């Protein structure tokens, strides 16, 4: 039996519950990608129903369909170019008037429309009663009450979609009227557009075109090829400006609300006195002048603990698993006959794959916490509370959260920047996150500080390192915002949705989707680079002759020195000498680009101490014997400022959708690290340290 295909686009305001409706309609059959060329998410899903194969496309949440933001343009263009069979506008029924603004624009575009009155349970609680039949007639669209996060209304919605798709496009009788003055000018523009056979008529309807031209829509106006049309539009706009002493665009917006207001007055009754809800009570505390910040800090602390402490247990489990796997695979080769394949599999592939998967618990837990904060509505309040502080650095209040996570690990932190909508803020935050000293670097500090500093100095030195990171992050953010990511201070306007209890199903789904994206995208890059680094630290191997008579540690030392990484280490020695480093540190740094923890073990190999960790006294003694405390401090400084690991690089690439930015981050941090370490070392020598 052949199925007929239909495409359904889902539109709606942010916070209208669009995602839960999408999940309800598509179940597990979803695919998340990007719109080509931009970092805006594109979600698609499939469902079979009533003999149809339905493809659902989740458009970005928008308040409107203007040309002012990329999300709105994408949504609008999808509707115009892909011509979906049905557009479902998901409306927050407890906040109808504002939500219907988008619906009026869809009506203007004359798309086959279905309205999902979502959160209808909350609307009921508020005492709102809808005459859906009448409203449906006025808006010429089927209306279906739904409760997305509980799965209610699914069948009715699907039925409405199918019926609307079968009915197809209709000639509307109830058009949005903009008042006599504007209608007069619209008629003039429509006439000339048709007369001059404007090529845009192939895609858009004449009335809609006229409306956009009157609104001075940049996208449409710039695509009009006939000057005669624009010559007519100009005076129309001037005329309206004079009559209304305001831009036609604003008057048109006002008239849309007028239309909505009229339709709602007739069809919506409020039976309960709207009293101060629980939301307001919570807000009184959470955004309170004095309590707001402490509440926020406590919650952040909990998020941090959840991500890293709770994550420890599954991470250790995974670590053990991969170690065991490595041993098992090694077991296939009789002892002593290990060859390159074994090394590639165990030290390259398994180590690489393990390195990626081991982060998964962290990431899942973090996103679980974030999903909870976002879905409950708290995230908006957090931005409100943090705004005054973050504003001084030129960042959004929400930037605080990814930066805080960065103290644990940059990887989930960079992923967390998704909560920032503004591209410039997001990129700036991504660039400076590595300066928040992450957990891996702690292993380096744990090795070096006791090796060089007496007991009473250890705490303060650690403090200084962390503080330096923070100060640098703030300064760099400021500089970036003034230069590369310059832009007027983000027009800060944000809706504060009412508090809601997130459903377990919803947050689990959000979380799982993020985790999957991480595995697929970042995972592949990290694995590839890990294998490359394995090759660089293992090959070329020294000849049998060179290895004669050496013990196990010395063999490993010789192999490392002989490899590509080792050679690079020697080659860059002259460059890093002014920082107080030698080729041994250089080699360890090269190996450590895979992951900062590796620095310690690489250093151990170079000093033929065998496998050692940061607690190794032997290694510390070697360090003490060979370097000064100043050098030790400089090593920590360099590790702090330079990129923590290739995984970070991969993550930046993924979140910025560009290798260019990832390399910029890498180069920028490395150069910054070099300059500062150079300065500190030389200054230290100067004053006799």
């Amino acid at each position, binding site marked *: 039996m052949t199925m007929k295909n239909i495409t359904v686009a889902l539109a709606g305001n942010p916070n209208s519950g669009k995602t839960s409706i999408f999940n309800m309609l598509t179940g597990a059959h979803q695919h998340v990608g990007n719109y080509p060329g931009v970092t805006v998410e594109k979600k698609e899903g499939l469902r079979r129903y009533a003999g149809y194969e339905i493809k659902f496309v989740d458009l970005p949440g928008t308040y409107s369909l203007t040309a002012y933001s990329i999300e709105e343009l994408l949504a609008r263009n999808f509707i115009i170019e892909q011509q979906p069979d049905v557009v479902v506008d998901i409306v927050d029924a407890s906040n109808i008037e*504002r939500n219907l603004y988008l619906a009026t624009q869809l009506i203007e575009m004359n798309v086959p429309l279905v309205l999902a009155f979502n959160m209808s349970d909350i609307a009921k609680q508020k005492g709102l009663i809808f005459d859906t039949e009448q409203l449906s007639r006025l808006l010429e669209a089927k209306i279906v009450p739904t409760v997305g996060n509980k799965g209610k209304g699914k069948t009715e919605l699907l039925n409405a979609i199918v019926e609307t798709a079968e009915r197809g496009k209709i000639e509307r009788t109830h058009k949005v009227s903009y008042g006599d003055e504007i209608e007069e000018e619209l008629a003039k523009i429509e006439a000339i557009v048709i007369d001059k056979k404007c090529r845009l008529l192939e895609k858009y309807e004449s009335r809609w075109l006229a409306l956009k031209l009157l609104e001075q829509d940049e996208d449409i106006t710039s695509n009009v090829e006939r000057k005669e049309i624009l010559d007519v539009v100009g005076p129309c706009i001037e005329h309206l400006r004079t009559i209304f002493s305001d831009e036609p665009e604003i008057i048109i917006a006002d008239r849309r609300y007028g239309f909505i207001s009229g339709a709602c007055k007739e069809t919506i009754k409020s039976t309960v006195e709207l009293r101060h809800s629980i939301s307001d009570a919570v807000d009184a505390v959470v*955004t309170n002048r004095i309590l707001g910040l402490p509440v926020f800090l406590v919650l952040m602390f909990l998020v941090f603990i959840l991500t890293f402490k709770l994550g420890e247990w599954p991470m250790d489990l995974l670590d053990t698993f991969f170690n065991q796997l490595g041993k098992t695979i090694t077991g296939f080769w009789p002892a002593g006959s290990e060859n390159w394949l074994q090394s590639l599999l165990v030290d390259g592939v398994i180590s690489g794959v393990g390195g990626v998967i081991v982060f998964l618990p962290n990431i899942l837990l973090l996103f679980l916490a974030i999903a909870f904060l976002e879905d409950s509505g708290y995230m908006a309040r957090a931005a*409100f509370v943090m705004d005054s502080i973050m504003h001084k650095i030129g960042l959004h209040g929400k930037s605080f959260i990814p930066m805080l996570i960065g103290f644990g690990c940059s990887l989930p932190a960079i992923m967390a920047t998704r909560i920032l909508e503004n591209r410039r803020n997001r990129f700036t935050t991504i660039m400076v996150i590595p300066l928040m000293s992450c957990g891996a670097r702690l292993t380096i500090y744990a090795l070096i500080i006791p090796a060089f500093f007496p007991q009473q100095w250890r705490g303060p030195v650690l403090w200084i390192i962390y503080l330096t990171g923070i100060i640098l992050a703030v300064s760099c953010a400021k500089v970036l915002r003034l230069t590369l990511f310059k832009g007027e*201070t983000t027009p*800060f306007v944000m809706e*504060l949705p*009412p508090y809601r209890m997130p459903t377990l199903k919803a947050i689990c789904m959000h979380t799982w989707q993020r985790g999957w994206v991480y595995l697929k995208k970042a995972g592949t890059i990290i694995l590839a680079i890990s294998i490359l680094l394995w090759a660089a630290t293992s090959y070329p191997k020294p000849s049998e002759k060179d290895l004669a008579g050496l013990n196990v540690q010395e063999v490993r030392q010789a192999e490392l020195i002989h490899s590509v990484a080792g050679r690079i280490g020697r080659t860059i020695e002259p460059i890093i000498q002014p920082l107080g480093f030698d080729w041994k540190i250089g080699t360890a740094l090269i190996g450590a680009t895979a992951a900062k923890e590796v620095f310690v073990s690489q250093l151990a190999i170079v000093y033929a101490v065998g496998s050692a960790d940061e607690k190794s006294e032997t290694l510390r003694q070697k360090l003490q014997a060979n370097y000064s405390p100043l050098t030790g401090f400089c090593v920590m400084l360099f590790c702090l400022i330079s990129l923590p690991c290739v995984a970070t690089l991969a993550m930046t690439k993924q979140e910025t959708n560009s290798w260019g930015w990832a390399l910029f981050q890498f180069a920028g941090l490395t150069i910054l690290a070099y300059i500062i370490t150079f300065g500190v070392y030389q200054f230290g020598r100067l004053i006799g340290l």
Partner: protein
Amino acid sequence: MSSENKKGEQKQLRPLSTVRNGEKVKLVRIDAGRGLNSRLASMGLVPNVEITVISNRQRGPFMLSIKNSKMMLGRGMANKIIVL
């Protein structure tokens, strides 16, 4: 420009940022570029809409309520919204 209401009090055009907690005002116009104007309009801030100020501190963002939703604005923006 000012107008008198029933009690004979004078009302002045002023920026939203000067309105105190709990006061209700009406939007007259927004002194900003078209992009910002349009975005605010699509979120409900059109001429004549009633705005209730929820939180106005001398520094930091500004919280208000229109129709049935709560919104947060930067101080700069609250300065540009002229109300009566």
